[in-house]
């Protein structure tokens, strides 16, 4: 019953913490990567400045893989003033698209690199097809859907929007972002109150997490970087089991977010989704979910983190 022609080749998009991981995930089947550096990108596992991005582009393009530059951070005046030079830099590095959230990036990308595709990614606020098309009329070619949408909303977004639709299918998601250094402030408070040391290492590699007393099973990773404090979901989205619904709906890009996961884990995940997507595309009618693919992921899954459907089958209230 597929409505697609044989030409439907959805993209499998990944992140990479290093050039080595990038190569490993290309081997595992990734079609594209989103890369960036903390100054301009939001919550990525690695740091690729324009120089490193150029290396990544050479390596990726030789294998038919695309590189998207994440310039989707919150942009203050200082960052905005250097934006034209930065965007020219990533364009020269050879990237295939720019991922933006702030309109300043859209404007500068159109001025400095009009040949590049533009992906609109406003995190939890990219929530409907009409707003996607608003950005489409101003140059965007793709919408990165909010992780808080459900299946019905995602499929309607795809049906009604003129843009390509990217959906995160695996990994953790951000649930809170503050400009404040909340962990450092807390350590500072404790020290002033005589409860503990003022020093606390707060980076993403430290493995810090929060537990809310009424939800003792859920561990929410938390870390600080130059952009402030980030709190991440206690579960990892895993949509392998319902991938066929998204494929049937014609979703253009399936993203695996490797943030705070090991290379080995990310490799297994990319491989599993590659296999599922290829199986579907080879014969949509005969496609069946293969439990063993999920088992491969489960074998490497942190036992403290559930695999979940996220908001895919939820109705939220307000």
């Amino acid at each position, binding site marked *: 019953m597929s409505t697609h022609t044989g030409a439907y080749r959805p993209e499998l998009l990944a992140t990479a913490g290093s050039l080595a991981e990038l190569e490993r995930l290309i081997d595992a089947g990734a079609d594209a990567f989103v890369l960036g550096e903390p100054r301009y990108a939001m919550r990525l596992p690695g740091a690729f400045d324009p120089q490193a991005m150029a290396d990544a582009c050479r390596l990726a393009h030789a294998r038919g893989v695309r590189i998207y530059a994440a310039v989707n951070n919150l942009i203050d*005046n200082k960052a905005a003033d250097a934006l034209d030079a930065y965007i020219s830099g990533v364009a020269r590095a050879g990237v295939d698209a720019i991922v933006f959230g702030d309109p*300043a990036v859209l404007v500068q990308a159109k001025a400095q690199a009009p040949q590049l595709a533009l992906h609109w990614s406003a995190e939890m606020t990219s929530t409907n097809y009409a707003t996607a098309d608003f950005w489409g009329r101003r140059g965007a070619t793709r919408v990165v859907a909010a992780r808080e949408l459900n299946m019905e909303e995602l499929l309607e977004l795809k049906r009604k929007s003129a843009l390509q639709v990217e959906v995160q299918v695996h990994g953790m998601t951000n649930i809170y*972002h503050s400009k404040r250094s*909340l962990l*450092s402030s807390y350590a500072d408070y404790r020290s002033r109150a005589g409860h503990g040391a003022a020093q606390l290492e707060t980076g993403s590699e430290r493995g810090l997490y929060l537990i809310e007393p009424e939800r003792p099973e859920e561990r929410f990773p938390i870390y600080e970087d130059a952009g402030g404090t980030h709190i991440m979901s206690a579960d990892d989205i895993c949509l392998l089991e319902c991938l066929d619904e998204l494929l049937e709906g014609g979703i253009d890009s399936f993203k695996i977010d490797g943030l705070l996961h090991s290379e080995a884990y990310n490799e297994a995940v990319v491989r599993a989704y590659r296999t599922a997507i290829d199986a579907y595309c080879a014969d949509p009618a005969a496609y069946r979910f293969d439990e063993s693919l999920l088992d491969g992921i489960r074998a490497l899954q942190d036992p403290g983190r559930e695999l979940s459907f996220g908001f895919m089958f939820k109705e*939220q209230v307000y």
Partner: protein
Amino acid sequence: MATQAKTRPQGKRHRLERPELLAPAGNLEKLRFAVHYGADAVYIGGQKYGLRSNADNFTFEEMEEGVRFAAQYGAKVFVATNIYAHNEDLDGLETYLRRLEQAGVAAIIAADPIIVETAMRVAPKLEVHLSTQQSTLNWQAVQFWKEEGLPRVVLARETSIEEIAEIKAHVDIEIEQFIHGAMCSSYSGRCVLSNHFTDRDSNRGGCCQSCRWKYDLFVEDEPLGQQEQDKFTMGSKDLCMIEHLPALIEAGVDSFKIEGRMKSLHYVATVVNAYRQAIDAYFEDPQGYRVKPEWLDEINKAANRPLNSGFFFGTPGAGEHIYEPEEKAAPYDFAGVVLDYDEVACIATIQQRNHFKPGQEVEFFGPGGTFFRQPVGELLDEEGQQLDAARHPLQHVRMRTEQPVKAMDMMRKRIGGR
């Protein structure tokens, strides 16, 4: 060293045009009091598209009534349509926006670009102000929204005074800024804690304030804080900029916004009253401007949490968050509203808003800083029967006041057994 003289500011710039004082109004009564106490504009929520789904929120008829009332004072009414819409919310958007325009609303405050664009297309008489929920921090983004046709942007609460001045220097647009009230500790719009904890969508008005809960922070799988007053939280102190108005005015802020569509009548009237006096005092004599202690005293009587200056002078640290139990700042409670005053007999008719009784110390206050204290004397009901206390919600009682009062003046009682 040689450049020092060059970079020094060219003396203070005093603005002549008075910025707007913009107050929240959770319902029609709060709207009337906000305007009466000196707000130049109020913002309210309608039945849809607003971020306070638990507030009373206005019907179109109430909006019309609010617009009429505000117009008597030369004040405007704005409507918050500041959700991030989901597909299902788009149905009915055009009708809703046209209806706001018909009701005489001056502006909407919108975050979602499709609401911005739709309003400009279908309801051209409505001004569209970009909500703080867009977390706009830089002048190029502000320039983008100006070119889209917006006359005003509410910047992110994370913007410093210096950054606001830079934005104003680059772009000729009205800047509205929150200057008082509760704050999201996250970037506005960039928090889905409620969605994860309770399936309530924070970006459509369902926020359950999870940032104010207590958490255990685990370091190497051990919780860091052991006692209750030693837990992790993201909860921020509330914003209060009354001591820094000149800096905001000189940076070019065009509209001073007070947070709190869910706050009480007493809160709105008290806070508006204090800021109204401060702004007017500044413009009367910019050079001689001093913060009056009574403005701060008044604000503290309404305050729900400890206060701070947010991001205006730098990123908040340990001292700007609430780790320990909160104490009420001032021992006063709202007790009544003056309905009428008999000048000959010096008797006020008061609508009860909280229990009070003869002998208790109360204070009366009104717009412009009128203020006096007295003990409650003889209390009578409307039939002239003596009362031992005003114990019934909204009951009308009569009492003698030591100074003249006016309708819409308010009365507080001292609490805490003193």
